[in-house]
């Protein structure tokens, strides 16, 4: 579709510039006393020790983490919506995040500590969540009720959070820790978290590459896709594994941050249309932008404290969800 691909390049550049700008703002602004001017000076080499610590020791790793998590969640959102043919699908709503959160709760209560969690645990949990999605989609075309998937996901999340509740009943130490983890936050993660998250992200992105064209073909319909030489079932399985990897990594790194997988595809679709070959690349830039924006807001609203980022994304994402649904027809993927 030559028309749409003409849109992609300018949109990508806009998104790219936006991302760079947001990264800069994220370095300049924070909840503390190091204001924008001082930060600017520090970036150019003249700043005192405290400013340098705040910029390079706190804000820079945080920005990096936001970018990594944003890419992971943005891409996962677009992929999930494409494979379920459902514009309301979101890893948080479908229970994928609930799966990895539950795995984390189990791990913590069995003795691990929240800060040094094995990423594989979270990915495994996310995979279980994806299994449910697969089952509901029945590995066949889903043309029917878009809400059935959401409802199943909501009930599944409820079930898993009840199981977590049961575990936490006996163990108050874990309950106290989970109280803070469950809202998701980018603050205070040690640098090791970033390094641990990178393999998961890169793996997921690499595995995603060969799946993009088959996914685009699937959007034309199963029969057509098969006749083009793709295997719909295998494609779906592959995509769901990628989603699990990306979501599990993001959750383990920053806790469950919901609604990003809804906001990013929404924006991408508005900008370049529904073709996944375009929305996917755009989402790699939009994801971190949205997350950084939310992070900056969370730092500014209640200084000297900070709002948990999961709350900010929920308050942006819920209206997006409602707006999606208020449109006359659900956009077809």
């Amino acid at each position, binding site marked *: 579709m030559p028309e749409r691909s003409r849109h992609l390049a300018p949109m990508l550049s806009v998104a790219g510039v936006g991302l760079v700008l947001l990264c800069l703002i994220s370095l300049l602004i924070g909840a503390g006393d190091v204001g924008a001017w001082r930060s600017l000076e520090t970036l150019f080499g003249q700043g005192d020790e405290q400013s340098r610590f705040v910029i390079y020791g706190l804000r820079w790793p945080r920005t990096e983490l936001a970018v990594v998590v944003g890419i992971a969640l943005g891409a996962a959102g677009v992929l999930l919506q494409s494979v379920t043919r459902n514009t309301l699908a979101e890893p948080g709503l479908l229970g994928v995040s609930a799966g990895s959160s539950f795995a984390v709760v189990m791990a913590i209560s069995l003795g691990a500590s929240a800060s040094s969690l094995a990423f594989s645990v979270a990915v495994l949990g996310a995979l279980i969540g994806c299994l449910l999605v697969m089952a509901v989609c029945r590995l066949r075309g889903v043309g029917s009720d878009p809400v059935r998937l959401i409802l199943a996901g909501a*009930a599944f999340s409820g*079930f898993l959070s009840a199981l977590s509740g049961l575990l936490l009943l006996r163990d108050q130490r874990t309950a106290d820790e989970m109280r803070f983890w469950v809202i998701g936050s980018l603050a205070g993660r040690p640098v090791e978290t970033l390094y641990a998250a990178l393999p998961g992200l890169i793996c997921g992105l690499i595995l995603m590459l060969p799946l993009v064209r088959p996914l685009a073909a699937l959007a034309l319909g199963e029969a057509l896709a098969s006749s083009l030489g793709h295997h719909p079932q295998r494609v779906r399985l592959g995509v769901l594994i990628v989603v699990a990897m990306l979501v599990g990594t993001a959750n383990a790194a920053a806790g469950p941050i919901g609604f990003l997988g809804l906001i990013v595809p929404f924006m991408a679709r508005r900008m370049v249309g529904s073709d996944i070959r375009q929305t996917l690349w755009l989402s790699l830039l939009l994801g971190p932008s949205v997350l950084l924006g939310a992070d900056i807001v969370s730092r500014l609203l209640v200084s000297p404290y900070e709002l948990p980022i999961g709350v900010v994304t929920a308050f942006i994402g*819920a209206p997006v969800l409602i707006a999606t649904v208020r449109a006359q027809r659900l956009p077809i993927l």
Partner: protein
Amino acid sequence: MKSMVVRRPSHMAPAGFWLLRLGPWTQLVSRRSFVAGALLLLLLACACLVSLTFGGSRPIPVKDALLVLAGQGDAVSRLLINTLRMPRILAAVLTGAALGAAGCLMQTLARNRLATPGIVGLDNGATAFAVASIVATSTSLLPSILALFGAATAAVLTFALASGSGSRGYRFIVTGIGVGAMFSALTNLMLSQAPIDAANRAYPWTVGSLNGTSAVAIRALAAGLFFGLPWACLLGRQLAAMGFSERVSISLGVRLGALRMTTLAATVWLTALGVAVAGPVGLVALIAPEIARYLAKQRGVPVLNSAWSGALLMVVADWAGRNILSPIEVPVGIVMAIIGGPYLIWIVLRQPDRRVQ
């Protein structure tokens, strides 16, 4: 012209039905659903008795329990039953009935077996307001009242945002999920900022618990059910006509828009009352109608049977929660979710395309 329709004598009901006559008023009652209802009530009575006597920190022989109910018996048993167990069982029965009926109405309205009032944000709204009353203010405001307001607010918000939802109910459901997510984020925020003793006090309201329900709330629930349940049954009968396509329904004289609004109002009313007493025990509203439908195996809207099976579920879940990890109590909401979750997944996997009716 001779009619081709076979005329049955007016005193004979169709096969499988009974005809009730009360003066000028006649009512068709399905035999099967009546038997199912009677069975459920019997099971409910047994469950209540078991919950009253067995298990717990101090099991009471059935004989003594009956003595206490008759007004005699020793002081400790009397205290145990009248102060602790009876109110609790009563709360379970009433809450289960309210939520079961509400769930049945909701599923019919949304034409979807997976729709529950809880998923539409009512549970989350109630929790958020109740937690706010405990965490943000002192203990003077009764959390139950605020929970009621919370559920009502969530419903109004959802309805306002999904206005003009047209004939397909999905917009309303998804809007409800969005509203619910916002309230849920608010609750998490409040809990993370609260001092630990306030967070502990607010805990039962986040999972759904029958521990220490207030007598005032139970009485309010009973009064609300007294009017709500018959109203729901009436609506159920009208909704059964809606099972046909819209054109047929309208030509049958059903006023669809008004019916939907009224049903929604009834659902919110019943759910809000139930949740104000027990907290977010939403899954009852999902499973109870399924049980009712399975037993009656008949098309129609089994509001009353859903109510009885909801009550049965709550009593059983409450008893189980008290006894599994004794002396630690598992809140009834958690038990319900643990039973309900796999069941729900099973529904989803088994017959993915079957509609409600």
